[in-house]
């Protein structure tokens, strides 16, 4: 298996999201009909199936909905990172997104912990929205 960290294969649905992250914003789709945000970005709203969608800059605040401390890496690419915390973040605006918690002390992470987004540059094209506890 590759020791190169996997990068997102960006498509037309996700391009504005990744572009915004690269510019330091968390932009996710907002439905003009039902008024709900969703994640991951789609061409139709998964709540009401409208295609009246636009990207909206959200607060970047939320809480840990659930998480795992990876004691074994997801392949050799992540071997240097263990232990690391992969977490499902519930944003204030409602949607959940998978991410990483940036922390020196994985044991401190808990469900319900308040977090905010922090942008971590991976390559010249890709920046990941990670989260840290506030």
């Amino acid at each position, binding site marked *: 298996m590759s020791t190169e960290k*996997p990068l997102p294969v960006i498509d037309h649905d996700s391009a504005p999201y990744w572009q915004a992250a690269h510019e330091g914003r968390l932009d996710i789709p907002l439905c003009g009909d039902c008024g709900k945000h969703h994640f991951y970005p789609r061409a139709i709203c998964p709540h009401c199936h409208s295609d009246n969608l636009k990207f909206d800059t959200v607060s970047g605040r939320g809480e840990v909905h659930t998480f*795992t401390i990876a*004691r*074994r890496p997801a392949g050799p690419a992540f071997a240097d990172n263990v232990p690391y915390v*992969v977490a*499902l973040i519930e944003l204030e605006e409602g949607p959940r997104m*998978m991410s990483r918690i940036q922390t020196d002390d994985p044991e401190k992470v808990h469900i319900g912990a308040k977090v905010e987004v922090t942008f971590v540059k991976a390559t010249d094209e890709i920046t990941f929205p990670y989260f840290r506890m506030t």
Partner: protein
Amino acid sequence: MKNGRDPVIVGLADAPIEDGKFVTKASVLGHAALVAKAAVEEAGLTLDDVDGLLTAGMWGVPGPGQLATVTLGEYLGIMPTYVDGTNIGGSAFEAHVAHAAMALREGYCEVALIVYSSDQKSLRSRNLGGRPSVLSMQHETPYGMPTPVGGYAMAAQRHMHEYGTTSENLAEIAVATRKWAQLNPAATRRDPLSVDDVLSSTMISEPLHLLDCCLVTDGAGAIVMTTAERARDLKTKPVAVKGYGEAHTHWAIGEMPDLARLLPAQKAGETAMKMAGVSHSDIDVVEVYDSFTITVLLTLEALGFCKIGEGGDFVSGQRTAPGGAFPMNTNGGGLSALHPGMYGMFLLIEATRQLRGVCGDRQVAGAETALVHGTGGTLSSGATVILQKD
């Protein structure tokens, strides 16, 4: 009311494995063909009688495995006129039983063959961590999500948070399942296991330990279905397919609607039990997918054997072990018998054997009705089958 076209299981076979690896030297398709032949011959049929072919697998992708029924039909040298390559993960074979049952009732096929084969252990190819980061996975894989264990760990963490479930509760499942494996000469892991052993095994993805996780083995299995009428002339005693249901909710674990509640199992179980006209107290033996200990806990709650959140109490005190009140995963399960990637086939084989009454030391006395529930993906899909001694 009984009907001559009611679907029944009349044949089965599984490939011998030793230390988790195939004993016979053959390709992954070769093993599929060998169990297919054995299963039809057990029933007194031949492969030429097969007009319905159902399979799902992970071999040959990209390549011939993308059209799995087509490739398998070619290898077997048959021309099926009803095919189903439904792949919803490890629960695919429970869904295949449902689909074959409908085709048999409709008169669309007469003899349906359901097959699975994997040589993942021999090939050392268990490689789900490399799920390409395309489409929904572009929002998961790059964060280093250990797959599939990480998703199950997140569900376990959430269940613990909401309901106070403990690692000891989960370990009870692994220990009870091992006791069944000790009664099954074909099971891979038969050494004694205690709750402390599970809790002190390597932490993989918190809160799941190594011994909360299923085995990685080779394996191949096949099931033959036909109508009750056709079964009268065959060699085996048929097992009736009385009810079935299926559902799925997500691929990416982040999209699971409720991480502490297995909605596909709830939906599929309700549908299957209603169709079969059975209630929980009618079920004599339960075979549910145990990819991880948490999978079992979530499944038992969703199927309604206990209330949501009470799964930890339900499995306490070795309730699911041999001699316990709730005989479950009687071959030793994916945790201790075998787990060749998509395990659902082997749930069906064990349930059918229990209803045939051929399980020797692990036979559940008086087993007449069995519930089989497969889970696939990352708690993504569920399919239930109710089987009954005819």
